[in-house]
């Protein structure tokens, strides 16, 4: 019994310490912004890394999400004689939930994993120590531009996800199943309010900062992985980054939704 309590206590303390460490990591990275030289160049590179590289996967996922929503929505709504509400259904589902959540998960899968692996390799090959010995703040050089890039990339890609998803819903609902296109688009037009777009962008912003910070932190602490080292530690860090960032996305989504609904 004592051992069990001891294990629970140690695990709880480690979790609290982990949260504290993560909070320090993020705050120090943010605080490093004013003193980081040539931040603009690094920021542009980070925007490319997270944004341009993810456009394809986000577009494809958005298209198929819209197609499925149109298909499922049409048949379900038709059962209740409300097929005309398809535009409303697709637009609100995408704007309020699916676009920010699925968009964030896709960016985490594509760019977040790459970020964790890259920073993990920097750590393994002592490049982060090298930055420190050169008098360069590793947080300012490696982390700050990526966090700042997330602030612009996630909202833009989420908006792109929403628009492509709406087009996907139109393709399956109107072009394939025959719903009048005017009915579909007027449903979209009248359903989406400013508050829905604001919720969508707020979620995208928060998901961006949280998930990219988790991926950066996971890579940055690769040398602290217990029981593994070298390439195995990078592998563990990358997996950990994707899993934690995905869970965080869904958990934060619930929190934001519960406050805004």
């Amino acid at each position, binding site marked *: 019994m004592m051992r069990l309590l001891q294990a629970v206590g140690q695990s709880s303390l480690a979790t609290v310490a982990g949260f504290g460490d993560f909070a320090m990591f993020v705050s120090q990275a943010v605080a490093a912004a004013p003193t*980081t*030289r*040539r931040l603009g160049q690094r920021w542009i590179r980070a925007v490319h890394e997270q944004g341009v590289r993810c456009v394809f996967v986000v577009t494809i996922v958005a298209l198929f999400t819209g197609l499925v929503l149109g298909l499922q929505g049409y048949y379900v709504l038709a059962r209740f004689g409300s097929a005309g509400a398809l535009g409303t259904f697709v637009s609100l589902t995408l704007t309020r939930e699916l676009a920010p959540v699925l968009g964030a998960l896709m960016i985490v899968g594509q760019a977040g994993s790459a970020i964790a692996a890259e920073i993990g390799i*920097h750590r393994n*090959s*002592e*490049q982060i*120590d*090298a930055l*420190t*010995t*050169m*008098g*360069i703040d590793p947080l300012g*050089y490696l982390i700050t531009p990526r966090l700042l890039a997330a602030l612009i990339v996630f909202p833009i890609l989420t908006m792109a996800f929403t628009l492509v998803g709406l087009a996907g819903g139109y393709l399956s609902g109107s072009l394939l199943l025959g719903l009048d296109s005017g009915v579909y688009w007027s449903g979209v037009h009248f359903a989406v309010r400013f508050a829905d777009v604001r919720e969508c962008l707020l979620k995208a912003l928060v998901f961006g900062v949280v998930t990219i910070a988790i991926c950066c932190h996971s890579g940055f602490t690769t040398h602290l992985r217990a029981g593994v080292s070298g390439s195995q530690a990078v592998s563990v860090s990358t997996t950990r980054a994707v899993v934690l960032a995905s869970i965080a996305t869904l958990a934060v989504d619930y929190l934001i939704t519960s406050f805004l609904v």
Partner: protein
Amino acid sequence: MIRTTLPPILEVHGLRKQFGNHVVLASVSLLVPRGSIVSVFGRSGTGKSVLLKCLAGLLKPDAGEVCFENGSVDVVRRRCSYLFQANALFDSLTAFENVALPLEQTTRLGRREIAQVARNALKSLGLDKFAEHFPAQMSGGMQKRLALARALVTQPELVLFDEPTAGLDPPARNAVFEMIVQYRRQFDFTAVVVTHDVPEALAASDRVALLEEGRIHFEGTPTEFAASGDCIVRSFGDNKVTLRNG
């Protein structure tokens, strides 16, 4: 040869570092005279690299102090460079970008000046034709020179070398030590070299120190090291010294 009467650029007093219950450095004290090459020997796992990382400020010692001409460890970081065992070059940056990086991030030089200084550094180490190559496209020796170019481009007063000859064959090991001696003269820095290559280091160094059981067991000139009757010093092989000129 450097006389011990020269003022020390770096003083280490009672440095202690342990990981868990394992004491790596018990109490290390060392003086590094300005302009000298000081080599630190020791068996594997005796804490040579830990000592170097404490000097560079990468590890925080549990006790003791590191003084850089009466300044703190933060001063050491600003005025010293560190050459890592595996070079720690940024593999996604070209040779030129690797060398320009510390200038871009720590100085207020303009683009043209940075390019000029970086190209001069590459040229002085014979790498000007490889400026646009990535580290992976270069040989081990060239990577070592590139790492040295990056270390020297900010004109440090002290350069810390962590096993610069690890994994190199004997001719390449000699070449690395010759390079350290040559560039020490050219760039006028002080060097602390952690190494296993006793003969090469004895030939290149002004002073040597032997780390054993977390303490400096021997400190003196290469000649004194070679003449020592101490059994631990003698266990470091046939320490014939071929002193370099000058």
